[in-house]
């Protein structure tokens, strides 16, 4: 019926999946950096910084990622440049990831017992020293499982960038479907590839979490 073999389909999808992976990595790392900056403003002592980050998080968690992609795409377009889809996709996903990561990490910092702050204060440490030597090392440890878990959301989030024209796995699925007229097989394979990307991340997050809980029980 078509001149596409299953292998042709898989090969095309896998080639496109490289862009899904690349975009995921860029978004995750970029989001992590922006998220870390936001975190310091959020847990810092300045009211204004706290309010800014709260609002930022509310906006990015309270609106669809798809809308954020549209706004990035057409918003950048207002500056008169012809916006490549990858730029809008990367920008939106980085800002979106940052909002979620910042919230996750704030939870981890706040999970550190008050006594840790008081003990380090009573030893004469200043805010930065407490953060650097006492709070963050502990927060970082408990932050690993949920952070890894969130990377799954990032990979899945990249699928929406196909809608603004970034050619990654989902877009390739649509293109290949249009060429082969085999949506069942093609979207099934696309789903399978996403699953292969996401499931190991989900699983490691769970395993890390379990390990951490066991370590905690030893106290």
């Amino acid at each position, binding site marked *: 019926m078509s001149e596409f073999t299953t292998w042709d389909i898989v090969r095309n999808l896998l080639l496109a999946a490289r862009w899904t992976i690349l975009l995921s990595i860029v978004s995750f790392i970029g989001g992590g950096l922006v998220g870390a900056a936001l975190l310091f403003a959020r847990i810092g002592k300045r009211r204004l910084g706290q309010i800014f980050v709260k609002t930022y998080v509310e906006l990015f968690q309270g609106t669809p990622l798809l809308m954020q992609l549209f706004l990035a795409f057409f918003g950048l377009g207002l500056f008169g440049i012809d916006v490549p889809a990858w730029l809008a996709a990367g920008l939106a996903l980085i800002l979106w990831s940052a909002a979620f990561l910042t919230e996750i990490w704030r939870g981890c910092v706040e999970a550190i*017992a008050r*006594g*840790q702050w*008081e*003990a*380090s*204060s*009573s*030893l*004469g*440490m*200043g805010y930065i*020293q407490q953060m*650097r*030597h*006492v709070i963050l*090392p*502990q927060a970082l*440890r408990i932050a690993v499982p949920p952070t890894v878990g969130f990377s799954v959301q990032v990979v899945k989030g990249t699928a929406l960038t196909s809608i603004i024209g970034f050619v990654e796995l989902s877009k390739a699925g649509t293109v290949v479907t249009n060429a082969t007229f085999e949506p069942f097989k093609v979207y099934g394979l696309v789903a399978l590839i996403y699953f292969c990307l996401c499931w190991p991340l989900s699983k490691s997050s769970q395993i890390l979490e379990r390990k951490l809980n066991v370590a905690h029980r*030893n*106290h």
Partner: protein
Amino acid sequence: MSLIEITEVKKRFGNNEVLKGINIDVAPGEVIAVIGKSGSGKSTLLRCINGLETIDEGSISVAGAQLLPDELHLKALRLKVGMIFQGFNLFPHLTAGRNVMLSQMVVKKTPKAEAEAMARRQLERVGLAHKFDAYPDQLSGGQQQRVAIARALAMQPIALLCDEITSALDPELVSEVLAVVKELAGEGMTLMMVTHEMRFARDVCSRVVFMHQGRVHEIGPPEEVFASPKTPELQQFLGVTH
């Protein structure tokens, strides 16, 4: 001349006045036991002396220096006054030795080798030299509390504040911690400790402060306070706890 001067100190949480004008002078080498019902403001008083809470009125001075709520003064104060907590509050991600070394290195900028030597000495002093490389979760409660004491001592404070430091311990572990405190008292360390261990207070302390509803209700040497309590509140308190 007194080492710690607490003058007319008042502290409010919202509308709740927790300290209603506290006056205590602590001489160098004195060991003060602070007793009183739960909620009478004992912890708050100690936390104010260490600058963990800011006071609303009055003044606190340590070794002649006023307690002011800015970073610089606070740090200077905390170098002079150490604090031990009911819940130990060891840093769980660091070994016992590292717990003792950390603040020396980051606050006093002590070189690592020197900080380590100090840590070993202080752990030795509390009988835990062999636990230098153990993590807090590998230690018993009593051992953790002794590490916490070593950690405070490593900063070479001139006074120690202890807030119910044996209350979270299993009964059989209380004595090992009290033994360390007793030794410190014998060496002339100035101590101010909130405690429910009346026997210890009687045997070791030079003065006992009975707090009631945010005030120093009675104060005096242990013989007097325990043998002939003047106020009905203290009589009742001692009757209840005995």
